[in-house]
C-alpha cells in the first residue's frame, strides 16, 4: 500500500483518515476497504524512510492531527514506480493502480501508460512463443503451462484495450 498512499499524497497533502476515504472513493467496491490502523502504520514507516513528512496541525477541542506531505524522495520513488514496466499476469492489479492513480497526480497520462504496457506484454508473449518453440511436444505439462500463461497474457491485453476505450 506504500506506493498507493504516496500517489494520493502527490495529489495533495492529507491525514490518515482522508487517505482511507480517498482510496474508497477512488476505487469504490473494486478495492477492499483499507484498515485505518494499517494506513497509520504504513504512514509511520514512510515517514521513517523520509518518503513523507508529517506536520502537526492544532485543532480546537481535539488532539492535534498529523497532515502528511510527500517529500522529494517520495516523489522520486513514485515516479520510478510509475515509469517501470509492470510485471506479468500475477500482479496485473499493480498496473491498474498505476492506471487509476498516476494521472491524478499529473505524473503520466493513461494513453502513454497503456501503450507502454501493451508493448511490454507483447515482449513477454514473444518470450513465451520462443519458449513454446523450444519445448518438446512430448512435454505436455510444460506446454499447457506455457499456453496458460499465454491465455493470461491475452486476457490482460484484451482488458488493456477495454481500459483504453473507457479511461483514456
Amino acid at each position: 500500500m506504500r506506493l498507493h498512499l504516496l500517489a494520493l499524497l502527490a495529489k495533495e497533502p492529507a491525514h490518515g483518515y482522508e487517505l482511507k476515504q480517498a482510496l474508497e472513493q477512488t476505487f469504490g467496491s473494486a478495492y477492499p476497504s483499507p484498515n485505518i490502523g494499517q494506513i497509520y502504520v504504513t504512514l509511520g514507516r514512510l515517514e521513517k524512510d523520509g518518503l513523507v513528512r508529517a506536520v502537526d496541525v492544532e485543532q480546537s477541542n481535539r488532539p492535534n492531527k498529523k497532515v502528511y506531505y510527500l517529500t522529494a524522495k517520495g516523489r522520486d520513488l513514485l515516479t520510478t514506480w510509475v515509469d517501470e514496466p509492470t510485471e506479468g499476469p500475477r500482479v496485473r492489479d499493480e498496473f491498474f493502480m498505476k492506471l487509476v492513480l498516476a494521472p491524478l497526480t499529473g505524473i503520466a497520462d493513461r494513453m502513454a501508460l497503456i501503450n507502454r504496457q501493451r508493448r511490454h506484454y507483447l515482449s513477454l508473449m514473444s518470450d513465451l512463443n520462443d519458449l513454446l518453440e523450444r519445448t518438446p511436444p512430448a512435454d505436455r505439462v510444460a506446454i499447457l503451462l506455457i499456453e496458460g500463461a499465454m491465455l493470461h497474457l491475452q486476457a490482460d491485453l484484451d482488458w488493456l484495450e477495454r481500459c483504453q476505450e473507457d479511461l483514456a
Partner: protein
Amino acid sequence: MTPVVKTVNLVKIYSDGAVPVPAVRGVDLQVEPGEFVAVMGPSGSGKSTLVHMLGGLDTRTSGEIWLDGKRVDTLSESAWALLRREKIGFVFQFFNLVANMTVGDNVELPALLAGVSPKVARERRESLLAALNLTERADAAPAQLSGGEQQRVALARALANKPSLLLADEPTGNLDSRNTRDVLRLLGEVHKEGQTIVMVTHDARVAALADRLVSLFDGEIVDDGRIARRRSRTAGEVIDLR
C-alpha cells in the same frame, strides 16, 4: 532503401450514412523491406480500413499511398488488380477461397497468375502445403476443410507468389491453438527469409512475432515502436507458479 509501404496523411471517411464517419484520420506510416508490423487497437479504431486501403480493397478519401516507391492511391481498379497479383498477398479473417478448385490449385493459382513457371509454382505449392500440414488435403475441395484448415490454405495462397507485401486481417481468428502454432511457425519462417508483413490482429501470440507494434485509436496512430526482444529464458523465469 525504398520503403515497401508509405502513407502520407492518409484519411478515410465513410459517407454512406446520414453522418460522415471518419475511420482513418491522418495516418503516416512507413514500413521498411523485411519489417513485420503488427497493427492493434479496439474495434472501430480503423485498423481493418487501413490495411484494406493498403491493398487497394478500399479507396482513400485523401492522402497518399506508396508501394515500393510507386504512388498507388491514384490507380484505377484494374491497375490495382494487376498490382495485387504481382506484389501483394492478402489473408482475411474469412478465407475467400475459390470453391470449385482443389486446395492445391487454390494455392498454386496466384503464382501462375503472377507469371511464375509451372514448375516453380508447383514446388512452391508443395513446400507451403507441407509447412502448414496440409499435404494430404491437397486434392480436397475447400468446403470439405475445417475453418482452421481453410485459413491455413488462405495463408499458403497469399504467400505463393512471394509478394513484396503480405497484408493480413485477423489471420488466426478461426484457429485453435495447434493450428495457430503452424501458422505462427510459417509466419516466423517467411519473415526470417525477408517477407514484409503488415498484420491486423487481436491475437497476442501472432503480434508478438512482429518487430514493431502500431497501435491505432480513433483512426489515429497513438503508439508506434519496437517490441523488445529479451534474452531467451527458461520456463521457471517466465512463468510464476504461485
